[in-house]
């Protein structure tokens, strides 16, 4: 009985679809290249995911390589360091979220408040330059600043503290990592918010001014709600990259003493990969990351549907 009901539902959906295609064929034609793109370049190669469950050998190819089931996952989760790696990864990503996500929004709002148009443009352009400087150079500069002879220690000493190499202290690693990430990325991150800000109708501000609202009130009641859909969507997407802490920057900044707080999933997998190029292992860990990330995204999407008008679907 239930089965018939489901097939009935499908049938009626397909009927609806056929009717709609006839009526609005233009939309479907427009969608076709996009759908084709995703199928060809994303779904066709997706069979590669099974490498995570195999012992991949290039000569045998993906399909003929032997199955090993959950072996790689067992290796990964069986490691003595698994909790530390997970903890560090989550710690870094949460801090990046809490401090790093609002930063471009705040900066965008501040830049937006500058009155002199020229100054505003110049500040905007300068703010996004660090995004383009290569990571190796940025980390070189961070080392200089954080070293015991560096600028940050000058400030610490000025306030009565003792000089020490910040990169040698596990408790300093995450702050340095997150702060330098903001330094490098906040300018580029404002671009999208500035674009959203430009879309808020000037009429709303004029009306508010007539009503006697000052700048702060205007910001609170017009500006922020105006860019809220952008913020929410970007936040949902950000939740979908929670476990993705890349190894490049950490490799450049960490050392053996800071493993405690700096060693994350990707750096551990990287070091293992140097010993033994086990493609399947890194694929398995990557799959684990993806599953968690996707779950978080779905959760974030559900929450945003409940509490706001904006959501991915």
């Amino acid at each position, binding site marked *: 009985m239930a089965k018939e009901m489901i097939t009935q539902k499908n049938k009626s959906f397909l009927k609806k679809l056929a009717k709609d295609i006839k009526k609005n064929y*233009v939309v479907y034609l*427009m969608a076709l290249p996009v759908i084709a793109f995703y199928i060809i370049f994303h779904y066709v190669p997706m069979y590669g995911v099974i490498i995570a469950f195999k012992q991949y050998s290039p000569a045998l190819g993906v399909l003929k390589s032997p199955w090993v089931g959950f072996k790689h996952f067992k290796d990964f989760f069986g490691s003595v360091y698994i909790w530390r790696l997970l903890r560090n990864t989550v710690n870094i990503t949460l801090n990046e979220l809490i401090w790093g996500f609002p930063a471009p929004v705040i900066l965008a709002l501040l830049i937006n408040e500058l009155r002199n148009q020229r100054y505003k443009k110049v500040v905007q352009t300068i703010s996004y330059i660090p995004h383009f400087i290569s990571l190796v150079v940025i980390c070189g500069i961070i080392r200089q600043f954080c070293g015991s002879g560096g600028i940050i220690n000058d400030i610490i000493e000025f306030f009565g503290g003792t000089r020490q*190499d910040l990169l040698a202290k596990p408790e300093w690693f995450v702050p340095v990592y997150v702060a330098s990430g903001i330094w490098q990325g906040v300018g580029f991150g404002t671009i999208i918010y500035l674009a959203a800000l430009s879309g808020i109708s000037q009429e709303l501000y004029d009306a508010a001014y007539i009503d006697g609202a000052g700048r702060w009130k205007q910001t609170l009641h017009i500006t922020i709600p105006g860019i809220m859909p952008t913020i929410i969507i970007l936040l949902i997407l950000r939740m979908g990259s929670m476990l993705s802490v890349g190894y490049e920057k950490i490799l450049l900044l960490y050392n053996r003493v800071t493993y405690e707080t700096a060693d994350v999933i990707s750096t551990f997998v990287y070091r*293992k990969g140097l010993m*033994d*190029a086990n493609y399947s292992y890194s694929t398995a860990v990557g799959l684990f990351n993806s599953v968690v990330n996707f779950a978080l995204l779905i959760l974030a999407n559900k929450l945003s549907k409940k509490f706001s008008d904006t959501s991915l679907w």
Partner: protein
Amino acid sequence: MYVKFKRMLPAILIVSIFAGLFTGCTRSGKEKETGTNTEDEKITITYFVQFSSNVIQSLEENEVYKELEKRTNIHVDFLHPSGDTNQAFQLLIASNDLPDVIELVADRYPGGPDKAIADGVYYRLNEMIDKYAPNYKKVRESSPEIQRQTITDDGNIWAFASIQTDYEEPWTGLQIRKDWLDELGLPIPTTIDELYIALTAFKNQKGAEVPMTWWDSWQDKFGFLIGAWDIGPEFFKVDEKVKYGPIEPAYKDYLITMNKWYKEGLIDPEFFSRNGDGRATLIANNEVGVFNSTSDKAVAAVSRAMPYVTLVKGDTRRYGLKNFFNKGNEAAITTKCKYPEEVVKWFDYHYSDEGFMLFNYGIEGVSYTMQDGKPVFTDLMLNNPDGYSPSDMSWVYKVHVGPYLRDWRAFPGIDDAYLERSHVWGSTMDPIYNMPPITLKAEEGTEFSTIMSEVKTYVDEMTTKFIIGEVPLENYPQFVENIKKMGIDRAIDLQQQALDRYNNR
């Protein structure tokens, strides 16, 4: 009519965009065929090897290979990957797009060269070498060690290697400020105790901020200091028995000494976090007495190599920097190649007398001249008018490293100072404890790396903490026990099996 067309317009647009997806843009260049045999026995082979140079774009422009083509009638189409070489190699295999020859990364075939031969991807070369490569055969058989280093556990000769029949002296080690020593009236240290005295004097009397700097982590394996205790930082062997340094009792003595030196400010307080640039600044500012290398001319002029120090004066080092006769850069011939015998003969030339001169020194009259029966590099190489460095020139007029009979002294940048340093570094060295180039079996490799990636993380972290005093040395037994819990005995066992197989080659 017009209205109808207007309505059709969007459809036409969409279809053309759709079509654009599949036809793509300009296709430039066809892929060359491999192994074509065009007029008169001239063969073309595809050759995959990493290459990058400030001067030329490809080894096709290299004078040696140009000359080689004239002498042997084989044309080489070089394939240089741009980006990660190993990844490019893996992709080649995965897409079954093999070149005729693979150099340098051929040993990274998943499962190893033995598997590559078993899978029918590489040729087994033993028989062909017997028949067609007398020079290479002679070089291999000149010493049992060379033989072992150029054959696999299963007895397969799978590649032509870069071989040095002369033992190469250590090319790195520690250096010390001779001018400071002279000032203080101290000799160049040869033992740990003498080094301690020198460092203390540097600190107290010369006011050096950092008496000794550390080195890059990949150089740990040379055991600059730790080898004095006759152990290695990782695996080493004593009388063909494999041991693991950190769980040996002598490791504790090493830690105690380093901890003492650290407390007294003789070692760089930031030794574990300072990188090459930071060290370079300290050295160039005359704050350092003992270091690994410097590019500062003024400091280099007054520094000398310090022999690898030992515990007992006059002793020799049993663990240190060991150079192997097989320098790597192995070139395998894949089964894609249609003319393996010709290619074997071609490689054999690399090990002949003329090939020796060609690859090591280049073209007579251009890159070298003979003086008193010895080859001497010309100014083109040593003081290039365009300002290029000797190593840049080494990739244009000769081949710096590759599958040929190599003379390690044939580097144009080498001067007497360099040879002197190498000699000093080699003066206390007889590295019989260093592990030879063993190979683990494929399945064992995965198990091994799972154990060792944990062990190594632990050892690296704890060793540093012991030295800086963050963890008291009384915890050493616990440290050893933890390593054992991680499975080090199994890892030692695997290494032992591999060593036994190696010795039986």
